[in-house]
């Protein structure tokens, strides 16, 4: 399984050369390249044109591709989601941007009852190649209505795929795969990562949907996570290494389709599993991950699978409270220590 990942890595993911860019630049390149590659691709959303996108992902694309393919919409999230459905079912490949994933609540009917189900309800005939992009996550003082991590809602809806990149390299490769995918893909970008820099090779490459990645190898415990928490988990692993605890970090990268096998293989080796995400722990996607782990690796576990997510509250505004509400490097490290102390 790890092999499969590595194979995939070798086949599609080897950086050709070194080039450090920001994650939002990486996303821009993905959109730009795919727009050049396929005339059916266009972008619609709020403030994506003149403003360049709230997080500048589409900056400069209006000038380059014109108002016919970079479409500024009014504040009408249901329209954005629904127009993407109408355009997709008639042959386009729309990329619809929600400024914040929190606003998708306004568009849930179009996303869930229309986009996700049309193909199935119509007997498998319709094809809806839509990417719904949205800025997600907390950590920059946006308060409760601009900070949620709602991936769990979407993973529960058959007909949707869910992608949660953690690095600029993967952000670009995964977005290009999502745009070329013939399904409805929910692409969740952590807003605290837009300004993170990483190595992104020049030119064409893809990161396939549905393939987890082992971000760090270790023998004692496995952390299964995704999105920004991958970065925190790697830092925690670094700290723990000082203490002689070797942690393996598995980045799921896509939540549906879910490659759990990579995590299972790791846990069969480490016998300890910690599932981490920034979303509220209760009812979060961690429940699916933990359940599958204990279903598939029951006999390998020296301790119960432990989950670490946000406390049970909306995201508070005040800085100390906000940072105290979701998993931190310290909390992750501590959770691993407790997990191992149990065996």
């Amino acid at each position: 399984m790890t092999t499969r990942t590595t194979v995939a890595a070798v086949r599609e993911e080897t950086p050709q050369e070194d080039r450090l860019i920001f994650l939002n630049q990486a996303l821009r390149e993905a959109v730009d390249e795919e727009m050049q590659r396929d005339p059916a691709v266009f972008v619609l959303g709020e403030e994506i044109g003149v403003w360049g996108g709230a997080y500048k992902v589409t900056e400069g694309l209006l000038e380059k591709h014109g108002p016919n393919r970079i479409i500024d919409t009014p504040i009408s999230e249901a329209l954005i989601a629904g127009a993407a459905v109408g355009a997709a079912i008639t042959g386009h490949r729309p990329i619809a941007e929600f400024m914040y994933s929190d606003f998708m609540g306004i568009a849930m009917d179009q996303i869930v009852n229309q986009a996700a189900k049309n193909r199935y309800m119509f007997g498998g005939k319709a094809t809806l190649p839509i990417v719904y992009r949205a800025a997600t996550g907390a950590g920059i003082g946006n308060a409760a209505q601009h900070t949620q991590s709602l991936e769990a809602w979407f993973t529960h809806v058959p007909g949707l795929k869910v992608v949660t990149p953690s690095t600029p390299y993967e952000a670009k490769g995964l977005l290009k795969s999502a745009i070329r995918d013939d399904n409805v893909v929910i692409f969740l970008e952590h807003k605290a990562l837009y300004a993170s820099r990483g190595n992104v090779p020049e030119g064409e490459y893809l990161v396939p949907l549905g393939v987890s990645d082992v971000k760090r190898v270790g023998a004692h415990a496995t952390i299964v996570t995704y999105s920004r928490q991958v970065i925190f988990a790697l830092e925690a692993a670094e700290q723990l290494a000082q203490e002689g605890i070797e942690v393996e970090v598995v980045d799921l990268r896509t939540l549906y389709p879910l490659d759990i096998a990579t995590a299972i293989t790791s846990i069969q080796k480490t016998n300890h599993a910690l599932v981490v995400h920034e979303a509220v722990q209760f009812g979060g996607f961690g429940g699916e991950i933990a359940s599958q782990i204990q279903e598939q690796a029951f006999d390998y576990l020296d301790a119960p699978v432990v989950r670490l997510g946000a406390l049970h509250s909306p995201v508070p505004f005040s800085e100390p409270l906000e940072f105290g509400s979701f998993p931190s490097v310290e909390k992750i490290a501590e959770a691993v220590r407790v997990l191992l102390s149990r065996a």
Partner: protein
Amino acid sequence: MRIRRFEEAAEEAFRNARMRGALHFYIGEEATATGVCADLRTDDYITSTHRGHGHCIAKGGQLNKMMAELFGRVTGYCGGKGGSMHIADLDLGILGANGIVGAGIPIAAGAALGAKIRGEDRIAVCFFGEGAGPTGAFHEGVNFAAVQDLPVVFVCENNKYGMATTSDKANAGPSIAGRGVAYGIPGIKVDGNDVFAVNAVARDAIDRARRGKGPTLIEAETYRFKGHTVHDMAPYRAKEELEAWLKKDPIERFRQVMKSKKLLTVKDMDQIDEDVAREVEASIEFAEASPYPSLDAIEQGVYAD
């Protein structure tokens, strides 16, 4: 040519009147779908509603596949997975009936946006009931279409009721058509039981959209002869009201005009009537003779691979 179209119209109207086994009947409202679709090209798009049989047939939908879908058979339009509220025929530009009131409006705007982006002269027609008038989807969809001058015609079928709710309890303001002003687009009211009147208004709106002049909002005044669903006896409606409307039966009126204008003889029309009746019965036989889908179909068709 006009006669030819009216013949199609008549045929389709009759067909609608003969639909059975459905959940939401279109009976009494046939002239609207018929009058509008008569001027659409096969490659034009329509979005429909929970009361979608009439729209589907008027756009050319096949009775066999429709009936089989209502029966949940594998030979149905959706292989039995969609049912009455989710019939679609993408080859005919029928982007689907819809179980969510108002949801077809942003979708129609999107189809029109797509046509505009490609620089084609295809248009989209969006059917919706007056009950969808209060939905946010109506507002977001029509406003965007107007801002972008999209090639779409919004056709409100005002049959006076949304379940038991009268139009005035649902929609503030004098009329749906009257909202055109608010969006800076033409808003036109028409007798929805007069196929000729509907056709005349629709033709202009369709032509306007095709020429890139933007959307039009049409309000067709009609009436739901039956209850909301097959189960509803509509006790909330006055008997007199229904009887008054029954006198305006769009098909009866069509027959009168045809006769008086000597465009079709009573004999011709009875003939069409018979043919349609036979076709409908055949579709039922077809449906009943068709097998149910197999259980392994449940998880198929969710994703494209």
